[in-house]
């Protein structure tokens, strides 16, 4: 099969038909589609800034070729907020100073989003292990861990009292 490839990719619920060259990464493809919230840092799988969800599974966007995402559902940071309303996770990052320059933030948000979906009641140690996946050079991680812990606690509280998740 020769370049370019015509693929169908669903991003945050919107279906796109796009021509992509096989060596273009999913992160590149997303940015070209306008989802520039997905940031590219190291481009070899170390920094995690390009973390997105592919069929709900967290992935480094630089270690997946766009063509591999044919027929898949991708979620990016743009899919977290509901209209103008930030998600609980995004608000917690702001409240706990889980970001400073913001470059790594989309990757951390998507990492935490996937992790909390899989493990809604993590220990602080588990959160620390997971955030080691991505690099942040500003915060020292403390605020990021606090934010994720806070969201896990609030979601658990909301579930206990029967109110729906914000």
């Amino acid at each position, binding site marked *: *099969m*020769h*370049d370019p*490839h015509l693929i169908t990719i669903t991003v945050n619920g919107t279906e796109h038909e*796009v*021509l992509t*060259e*096989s*060596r*273009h*990464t999913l992160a*590149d493809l997303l*940015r*070209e589609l306008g989802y520039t919230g997905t940031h590219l840092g190291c*481009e*070899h*799988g170390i920094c*995690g800034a390009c*973390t997105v969800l592919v069929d709900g*599974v*967290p*992935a*480094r966007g*630089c*270690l*997946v*070729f766009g*063509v*591999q995402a*044919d027929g898949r559902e991708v979620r990016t940071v743009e899919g977290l907020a509901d209209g103008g309303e930030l998600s609980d996770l995004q608000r917690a990052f702001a409240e706990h100073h889980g970001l400073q320059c913001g470059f790594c933030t989309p990757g951390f948000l998507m*990492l935490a989003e*996937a*992790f909390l979906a899989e493990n809604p009641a993590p220990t602080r140690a588990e959160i620390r*292990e*997971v955030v*080691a*996946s*991505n690099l942040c050079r500003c915060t020292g991680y403390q605020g990021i861990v606090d934010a994720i812990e806070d969201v896990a606690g609030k979601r658990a509280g909301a579930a206990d009292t029967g109110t729906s998740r914000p």
Partner: protein
Amino acid sequence: MVYHILVKPASYEYHRAHDLEHALELLGELGEDAKPLAGGQSLVPMMNFRLARPSALIDLARLDELRYLRPVGDGLRIGALTTHRTVETATLPGGFGVLSRAARWIGHYPIRSRGTIGGSLAHGDATAEWCVLAVLLDARIVLRGPRGQRTVPAAEFFHGFLSTAAEPGELITEVVFPSPAPRAALTEFAQRQGDFGLVVVAVALETEGGHCRAARVAAGGVGSAAQRLPAVEQALAGAELTERAFAEAARAGVAELEPPEDIHASAGYRRTLTATLLRRACLEAGA
């Protein structure tokens, strides 16, 4: 839509396999420079660095037939496309818990969520947790190729720096761990969590009345491939199940090792680290 962006990897031809037979057909047709693409967590970084420039990739993602964990007799069969994360979170048959515990050491959560056991074995990094465990537990690696299926014992599979017994046209389809190892542990040390371990060690002990009757020991990072450490195994045989006895056996057993040296650690540091990790692994396994 046409766009022009800067790229890291060299161009290659992308092929998507529909099933195992199709993947093998493509591997045969496309020749030696074509590579199977599983989770891509080792191959794609190498392509982004242009350390690897395959002419074509054969995407195996649709081969759901290679994603499974199945007990077989006393043993466990794992399909090549099973992710590290699946092994980490699975409820495994008794005596195979070491596989889940070891999987936690692999890279990071997103990497474990995409990376596969078959891909890791095929890549053959000396410090890959699966390579060390395969050698430790006498795993059998099942390959399919132009001449049908064959099974290679782990002891004969890893040939040295990123090189294995897999021949052109062959694909790893399964790894079989033949028997349970209830008293086994893997541990390692890296400068940052999730990095490749400087040294990775794994032990499987057989115990009897407070003593170690026999021990199997394997390590990565002390040579060009994952390997057994017979001197440590001998030193551990008959040892008491105490920290002091484990430490003594480990120290004696690593004396003849000649680990590689690089900017991360000297040979001497790696040797001492190996002894320390062996003591920890024995304590975990013997507990």
